[in-house]
């Protein structure tokens, strides 16, 4: 059996008499992108802080390539690259000076490696500029570059898409997928928005109130229970029509109709909508089970 890149063993954290993390156990393998999802305040950052030894572990342990972060900090942390919360680089130094700073703190980081990482994150142009002038997206990328310098076997990114515009988010996703392949690292990406990171993850764990509520493979879909989304006008008429004609539960949100049905049922739905003079602009299938569970567990899809 190969050693997991990272393994959490009944990890707990209490501050004062408040239990913040209540026993997390899961592992992440090399080359895998793991989505760590939960609403704000669920305990994602607290878990990540324990993973990298920034805060003491109340109970349990984190093993990184088999090394305990508690007992064998240096060996364990050598395998980790991370951004915790925001990519807080020194604003008064250039991107390159920042990388140089962290390179000096780790053995075996060559100039060549620094250049490679800069290229990997597509920052050749910006690297000579002061970080104070960077956009948030640029700072995120520099943050990832910093985390990759020493060829870690696990990369931990805390809300890397937070605050980015849609184009930035798409770019970030592409970068992370590319990295997982290119560098063969395990990646943990946290987010409070399932939709922002679902596409790039191999596996997703949902955390709520310090507990893991579901852990599952992305793409393992329940074919009989898909969620379909339609962008359609006039929306009220279409909603009524689908409910009456097909006896389906329809939810209207942000100008989009969502409902469960079998894949085979969809052509008929669309056909009859068109025949009834509804204009369909977009039709989507979303990963029903996951989206649903998230929705059920968290109450809504996006929690700010």
């Amino acid at each position, binding site marked *: 059996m190969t050693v997991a890149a990272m393994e959490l063993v009944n990890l707990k954290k209490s501050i004062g008499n408040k239990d913040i993390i209540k026993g997390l156990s899961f592992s992440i393998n090399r080359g895998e992108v793991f989505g760590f999802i939960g609403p704000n305040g669920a305990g994602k950052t607290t878990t990540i802080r324990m993973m990298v030894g*920034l805060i003491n572990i109340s109970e349990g342990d984190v093993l990184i390539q088999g090394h305990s972060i508690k007992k064998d900090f240096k060996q364990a942390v050598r395998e980790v690259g991370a951004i915790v919360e925001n990519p807080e680089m020194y604003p008064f130094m250039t991107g390159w000076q920042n990388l140089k700073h962290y390179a000096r703190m780790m053995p075996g980081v060559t100039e060549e490696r620094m250049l490679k990482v800069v290229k990997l994150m597509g920052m050749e142009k910006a690297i000579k500029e002061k970080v104070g002038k960077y956009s948030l997206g640029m700072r995120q990328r520099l943050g990832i570059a910093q985390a990759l310098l020493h060829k870690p076997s696990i990369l931990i990114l805390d809300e890397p898409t937070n605050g980015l515009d849609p184009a930035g988010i798409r770019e970030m996703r592409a970068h992370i997928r590319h990295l997982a392949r290119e560098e063969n690292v395990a990646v943990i990406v946290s987010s409070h928005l399932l939709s922002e990171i679902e596409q790039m993850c191999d596996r997703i764990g949902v955390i709520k109130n310090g507990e893991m509520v579901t852990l599952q493979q992305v793409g393992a879909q329940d074919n009989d229970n898909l969620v379909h989304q339609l962008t359609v006008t006039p929306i009220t008429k279409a909603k009524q029509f689908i409910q009456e004609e097909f006896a389906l539960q329809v939810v209207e949100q942000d100008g989009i109709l969502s409902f469960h049905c079998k894949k085979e049922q969809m052509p008929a739905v669309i056909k009859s909508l068109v025949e009834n003079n509804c204009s369909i602009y977009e039709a989507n299938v979303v990963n029903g089970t996951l989206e649903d569970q998230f929705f059920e567990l968290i109450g809504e899809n996006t929690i700010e």
Partner: protein
Amino acid sequence: MSRLFKLIQNEQAKIYIRKSTWIMYIILFAIIIAGAFLTDKFSDLNEDYQGDDWREVLQEENKDLQKEMEKDEYAASINPETIAKNNYYLENDIQPAPYGTWNFVTENAVLMMLVSLLTIIVAGGIIANEFRWGSIKLLLIRPISRSGILLSKYLATLLFGLYTTIFLFITSWIVGAIFFGVGDMNPEIVKQTANGFTSVSLLQETFTQYGYQLVPLIMMTTLAFMISAVFRNSSLAIGISIFLMMGGNTFIGFLAEKEWAKYILFANLDLSQFADGRTPMVNGLTLEFSITMLAIYYVVFLAMSWIIFTKRDVAGQ
């Protein structure tokens, strides 16, 4: 070892890359220039004694001082010292040396107060700033123990103090040389002690003065460093340390009569109070006692910094 060296290099890069550090040096430089200018304009530079007739000049001066004392009460209180000093020159047949750059360097030992202030500012920020910037999280997830990070930061702070002291010393020497000339290689000066006047080597006097000033510099810097590590707040660290540095002597003035006054840090900072047969500020102080107290305070400051910095959670601001 080379890892520690690189960590110190990092810390120094972060100190010296910032504009605020350079502004501190520019201010220090400007004060040195201003000092030289004022000294040149308004101080007695012993120019009158440089001719072959210096003995007559001294005697003449003593007569004038004597006359002044008869008319003026204030002069009566301060002139005897000058007369005694002049007599010492005459009796021992020492020609007063001209005011040269070494005199200027020695007088600038008072600017070590400013060096302490600047070093306190660096010490107060060196840990707290990392917390304020959030960069502490990236700093502490390296294969380096927290003790190692702390040590590198402390050493970088002390080195900053040392470099700034050297800057003060060398800049003073150069500016002094430009304004007053280099002077003798090893000039002697006459100074007053409890046992009257003696002639001492000026160079030795210079290094002694700076040496005494290093004690409060190191102690107050270490105090600021501790507050920075414990409270993670630079304004607090800098504010408290500077307030205590400025106010310390005043407190001691008020508390000198108290039995426990000698245990206060500030009663022990000025080791020159034991030199030249002077009487210490507070009853019961001896050099040995002061050194012991300083060592205890120093160890406590460092231990507090270490315990808090290595053990406490790094979470939230």
